[in-house]
């Protein structure tokens, strides 16, 4: 009975499809039976951060109804998992019944590395990569979910790879959803520093665990340093770099 329900965020569904594929291959290869609810859509994070809480509540109810029967839900996005775990209960502060349902669901929704290490007890996925890796500690993974050790442990156990330290690895990459579009001049300064630190780390690949960071950093790298790579944790672990 190793069923895992996949929560594939919209950015992965529409843009970063390879991250979704890597997640599938990784989990399947580890013997998990995957379920994917085809009616799933957006979890409502953009509505929450923009302040449209009534719209977010609609999205949240829908999400809860789709996923609440699952045994465990796994997603390759820390910020979307944090939305379910941390934001949903707050959204329903005045609706105790929904809040209860949100809490119950939240307890079984996991970010990928958190699921592998904390729930399934897997610290080595038998991946291989020849070269140096640096890990960017995506904000929601690190601070909203408190996940730090898990992704690094998985990366350390990738055969042939060396996990190298990176200055200010814990600092935001400057994405912030709407922020990157509304305040591009500030966002640029932040992502520019992130990339500087990546280059200085000497790593071949920068690993992130959130689709937002991936879009932001890869977009910047493609413009300024097209020869450098940033990849999602799932891609490194699935060996699809």
């Amino acid at each position, binding site marked *: 009975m190793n069923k895992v329900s996949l929560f594939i965020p919209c950015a992965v*569904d529409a843009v970063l499809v390879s991250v979704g594929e890597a997640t599938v291959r990784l989990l399947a290869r580890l013997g998990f039976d995957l379920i994917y609810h085809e009616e799933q859509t957006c979890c409502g994070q953009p509505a929450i*951060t923009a302040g449209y809480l009534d719209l977010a509540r609609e999205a949240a109810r829908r999400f809860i109804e789709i996923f609440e029967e699952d045994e465990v839900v796994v997603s390759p996005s820390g910020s979307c998992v944090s939305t379910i775990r941390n934001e949903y209960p707050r959204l329903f502060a005045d609706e105790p019944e929904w809040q209860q349902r949100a809490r119950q669901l939240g307890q079984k929704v996991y970010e990928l590395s958190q699921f592998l290490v904390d729930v399934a*007890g897997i610290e080595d996925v038998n991946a291989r990569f020849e070269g140096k890796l640096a890990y960017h500690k995506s904000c929601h993974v690190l601070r909203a979910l408190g996940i730090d050790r898990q992704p690094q442990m998985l990366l350390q156990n990738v055969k042939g790879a060396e996990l190298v330290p990176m200055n200010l690895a814990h600092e935001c990459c400057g994405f912030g959803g709407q922020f990157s579009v509304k*305040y591009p001049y500030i966002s640029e300064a932040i992502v520019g520093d992130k990339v500087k630190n990546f280059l200085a780390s000497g790593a071949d690949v920068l690993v992130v665990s959130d689709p937002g960071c991936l879009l932001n950093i890869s977009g910047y790298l493609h413009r300024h340093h097209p020869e450098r790579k940033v990849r999602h944790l799932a891609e490194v672990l699935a060996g699809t770099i």
Partner: protein
Amino acid sequence: MKLRPEDFQSVAREEVAKTAQRDFVIMVAGVFNYLCDTAMGAYGDKEEQDKARALGAQIRENTLHNLPQLLEEFEKNATSNGIQVLWAADAEEACQLVKGLVEKHQVKTITKGKSMISEEIGLNHFLEQETGVKIYEGDLGEFIVQQRGTLPFHIVGPAINLTVQEIASILQEHIDMPYTETAAEIVSYVRTFLRDKFERADMGITGVNQAIASTGSLILVENEGNIRWVTSAPRVHVALMSIEKVCASFADAFHLLGLLTRNCTGQAITSYVSILNGPRRDDEEDGPEAMYVVIVDNGRSAAYQDPHLKEALRCIRCGRCGIQCPIYGRVGAYPYGWCYPGPMGNVIAPLIMGLDRTRDLYEACTLCGGCQSVCPGGTPHLDLISRYRHMKVTGDERFGGTRVSLKERAAFELMNRGMQNPALYKSGLKIARSYINRRSQDGYISSLPGPMSGWFTCRDFPQLPEKSFRERWQEDLQREAAQLAGSAAAQQEAAAHNYHLKHRPR
């Protein structure tokens, strides 16, 4: 130049372009973060540090829970210590009260200890205009900023963004200092200059770090000794505090101060800690003849009425959130247009200056949570910022918010509904794909007109794959996954790891 939060964008653009300043601030922030982390190490490992912060948050919670009672108790005990307690509803009233004291005591010269609340109410400017007294800031950084006529760059390092050359020029221009780039010579010149003022001052004005309700005492921390001087030498001492700066007991205050100094300068305690229990008594040699505490509300009690918004009053002004903030690190203090820059300003300014004027403060945030993770007062920055965004959308009139336009709302609603409806989502994605991919070169697009254009000032965007994940799943991924999971190797994996899904709620 008078800075205002409504000019955030234009000022931020200018500031972000100063790359040398930016690199310097990031470097200094790194050093301070290191010092503060090291100092926090005195509490023990990460878990113990979290406990210390949690206790700080609890003390602040108690204060907010019992605020009216604590203030009354403080007033009663301070009064019996001979301190006169005055109440000001807003900035104007606070300034008028101090002006009244200046006139009553025939004050000519004022020296000051660094105080954020006096910056908040614009006291220096007001008194100089209205009374003609001379005011001298006693803190070196604040003194430099005062001469320069700008906002403090950071609440504990007001002039941290200025180079020694800039400082030398400012002091040469304003206090006739012979130009020197030697820090020790600058300090020595300012010291001599200020000592004379300290000796002649009739009134000292300071802020308050914590007021103790149970004894009616004030505690002030500093490193330069100027506050000690300002509170003991002049005839009159006026301390300004905002309503939330009170706590129940000395034990509470000292825990908070331990967190404050560790998160401020990375010190276990500052070089000077002054505990003031009233004016000079008959048998004492030092101390002011008269001592006043002005308790300033300035919009805080309106926030206090709301069970969620009152959380914005937890701050103890350590400034740590600023050095954690990626936005503050790049744009500095000036865009915030007020004396509280960075995350601490993002949460307090909207409640005091109104949601409309401060829109960029709570919008220019990536919600990274760096601030919240270090805050010793337990300020829920992210929750507050999300609330302000929501209050803007709905037009919360209590705090000067105008509802967003119907057009803006309709556009968002349409997009959101589209995202929620699988059929609409699918057709929307199709349209977006063909629109975006038409512009693609080598798998990326480098510009798009319209609301997304900001993205492309420094970044490209990948073209959208011909098939979405959902489509890939339906087509063959699902089958592939089942095969992979069913393979002998995977089954072996599964058996070897013997997975048991133990749901561990966090």
